[in-house]
């Protein structure tokens, strides 16, 4: 596979870092791939623009950070303003249409998707926004199997919330698929 460098950004509490960890862990534990996840700590992790870097590859990863992401996810306007310029030319820029108004055309495939709106419409709880985003991302990139992500989620959350997360992941997958074929 081609090495995939991703940056997940948003604001503290949206779950972008959790989503990044779940994705990377799924790749390592269930798909026998190599992955590294790191995140910005400090004031920016408490409100403001949170950022987590994930690299997934089938070979050894040495430099652990992402300078130019192939995939950049921005879930707030602030995160978008701060990070949209670092996208790798030809990469994929995923934004949530509820939170982000894209201003300029970047040299990337821009996907403005109603992830938040769909979650609120079909589930009504913002808590699984990040898992829905992950589903969307998996449908668009086909990086790893959604089932691998579900396996990790099962180890991390109480049983009562499994169904909720499953649904959110599926909604995301469908959303991603719908926009992939467009």
């Amino acid at each position: 596979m081609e090495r995939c460098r991703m940056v997940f950004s948003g604001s503290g509490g949206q779950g972008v870092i959790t989503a990044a960890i779940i994705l990377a862990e799924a790749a390592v534990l269930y798909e026998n791939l190599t992955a590294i996840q790191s995140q910005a700590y400090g004031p920016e992790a408490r409100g403001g623009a949170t950022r987590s870097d994930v690299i997934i590859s089938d070979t050894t990863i040495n430099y652990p950070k992402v300078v130019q992401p192939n995939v950049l996810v921005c879930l707030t306007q602030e995160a978008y303003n701060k990070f949209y310029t670092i996208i790798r030319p030809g990469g994929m820029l995923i934004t949530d249409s509820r939170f982000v108004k894209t201003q300029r055309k970047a040299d990337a495939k821009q996907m403005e998707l109603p992830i938040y709106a769909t979650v609120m419409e079909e589930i009504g709880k913002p808590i699984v926004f990040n898992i829905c985003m992950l589903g969307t991302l998996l449908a668009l990139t086909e990086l790893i199997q959604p089932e691998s992500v579900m396996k990790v989620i099962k180890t991390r959350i109480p049983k009562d919330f499994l169904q909720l997360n499953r649904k959110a992941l599926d909604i995301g997958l469908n959303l991603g698929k719908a926009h992939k074929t467009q």
Partner: protein
Amino acid sequence: MDPNIKFIQGNEVCVEAALYAGLNFFAGYPITPSTEIAEHLAQKLPEQGGKFIQMEDEIASMAAIIGASLTGKKVMTATSGPGFSLMQEALGYAIMTEIPCVIVNVMRGGPSTGLPTSVGQGDVMQARWGTHGDHGIIALTASNHQDVFSITIDAFNLAETYRTPVILLFDEVVGHMREKLVVPEPGEIPIVERLRTSVKGGVDYHPYLPREDGRLPMSDFGGVHRYNVTGLYHDMWGFPSNNPSVVQGLHRHLNDKITNNVNQISRYKEYYLEDAECILISYGSAARSALHVVQERRPRGEKLGLLELQTLWPFPYQMIKEKCENAKSIAVVELNAGQVLRAVKRAVNDPEKVFLANRIDGVFITPVDIRNMLRFVQGRGA
């Protein structure tokens, strides 16, 4: 899924390894970026019958692990630069009294409280000379999770073998990033257990009388033997002495047990050194960026190599001199103003050919940073 495969932070790897090595007592005062070590041990140690104590400060933490080690426990504390400063007095006491212990310093930007959440490697010299007086010290580091695991076990083993504090100098990048770890089966990595005296209770025990091989068997304090432990120069009974020959003998012993065993203590990894014209020397997280550069440039025919140091103290002067003999240039990659650079310059025949590739702004050094510096070294301009 293989239960031995984990995807965790470097700090958690250190915890897993310490438990594997037999850790059963931890005292500490949590500080970023080392907090996860205390956090995870707070949960795991009591589960396994060990003791976890959150202390009021760092010198108390150090004092607590020294006492616990003396009673026969395998001990560790974890901190970052500011806390490591506060431990120095008691660290010297552990050196003088020859008490095995492991101190983890997950380095951040300094001096003082500096940059709590950013990476730095500024404590290399502090590990060497932070506590006062002539002394030997062992300091180890690692750049990836599998190595963090094995080096942490090495730290416990060396602490027992040489009866000395061992410092683990990790850094924020390695401590916080998540990557894969394969936990070895029990017994796969040898563990050095405490060497205890065979002298029976009621018979004279000399706590500071070395055996023929130079090692000092211990007796669990509070057990069958009564003996004295002091930070003053002491005789074989452990009682204070200012007898010049006793003082000189102990002084020599404390230094020689480390410096005479540099080759046994020295750990390093080498990449493409055989024909390297330019050798990068690096350690800890910075070695990851250095290795990235080397592996990217090799296929283009550039004769670059990497020497990754895992033992920083005692410094492997002779090994570095030999490895660098045929190199046209050497670049030390580190996240400080040139602490290992100076040691490397002292090691090689031709100090003028040693250059520094560093970053001191709290940002992790990128492969581009290293390549830009190499262009100057190789005479290719900016």
